[in-house]
């Protein structure tokens, strides 16, 4: 959908329309990255507020959704980095205490309903990923951004996007390989 000038100018009614249109996508991104619905809701509000304040800087060189995703990514990345600094349990401790549960989870059907404990376990594994890797994987796998959109959102080249996706995938596979070794002991 083409942006109209009054939307770019920050007219409140038009901005409310933008919020309605993009709410689900931004909330999905925040919920997937932050692992907590309340935090995600607060973060999503902050993101739209930042977008409103920065409307004047949107030049149209990228799509509006890519621009909005960029604001959302930067905001969530800040929160993830803060969360990483506060993290107390190491990955080894996590795997030692939960390796069997994780192994069962991975072998179960992917669309099976998740219990609270299993959801928490998945969140803790994802938290052990570097924030930048978790972000790009989430943008790719949950938000469904293609390489071009990822490059616009992350403000980097296509090659950089592909390289970062490769490293992110490798890190997650490494974590799960470590898990399977622990499970076999």
């Amino acid at each position, binding site marked *: 959908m083409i942006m109209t000038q009054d939307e770019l100018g920050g007219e*409140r009614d038009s*901005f*409310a329309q933008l*919020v*309605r249109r993009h*709410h*689900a996508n931004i*909330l*999905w991104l925040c*919920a*997937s990255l932050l692992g907590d*619905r309340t935090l995600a*809701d607060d973060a*999503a*509000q902050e993101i*739209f*507020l930042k977008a*409103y304040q920065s409307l004047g800087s949107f030049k149209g060189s990228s799509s509006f959704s890519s621009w909005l995703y960029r604001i959302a990514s930067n905001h969530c990345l800040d929160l993830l980095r803060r969360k990483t600094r506060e993290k107390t349990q190491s990955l080894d401790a996590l795997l030692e205490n939960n390796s069997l549960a994780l192994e069962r*989870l*991975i072998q*179960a059907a*992917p*669309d099976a309903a*998740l219990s609270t404990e299993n959801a928490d376990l*998945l969140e803790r*594994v*994802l938290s052990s990923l570097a924030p930048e890797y978790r972000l790009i*994987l*989430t943008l790719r*796998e*949950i938000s469904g951004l293609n390489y071009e959109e990822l490059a616009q959102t992350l403000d980097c080249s296509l090659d950089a996007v592909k390289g970062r996706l490769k490293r992110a*995938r490798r890190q*997650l*596979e490494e974590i*799960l390989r470590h898990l399977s070794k622990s499970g076999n002991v």
Partner: protein
Amino acid sequence: MDQEQRWEWIVKIFFRKPAKPSRAQTELFVQAVMGRIQAPITTLSAPIPCAARMVERWLIPALGAGAAAFFLHIAQPHPEWVAPLDDLVLMEGRTGELILPPDPGDHLLAFVMEER
């Protein structure tokens, strides 16, 4: 299961799409965001407009000049006050009592006046 199939399996487990918000939830969210955008910004303001201008224009420079003068004053070396010799001699109502011991090297002052 090959590597690509395994990765797809991992993605389905770890990157599940959260539940889509309902229309009502979205409307509540929109109201919350627009409410924050429309919230008035509180600022300190002087009751009289010209007083505000005076404060802005003169107060800070005046405070700065005053602080500079104060610090310059206390930073200046103050010579130690030395009591005149006559005062010392006249101290305690006794004339002629030399408070300070005579400097042996000073022949003019090396005397003790008798009390009267």
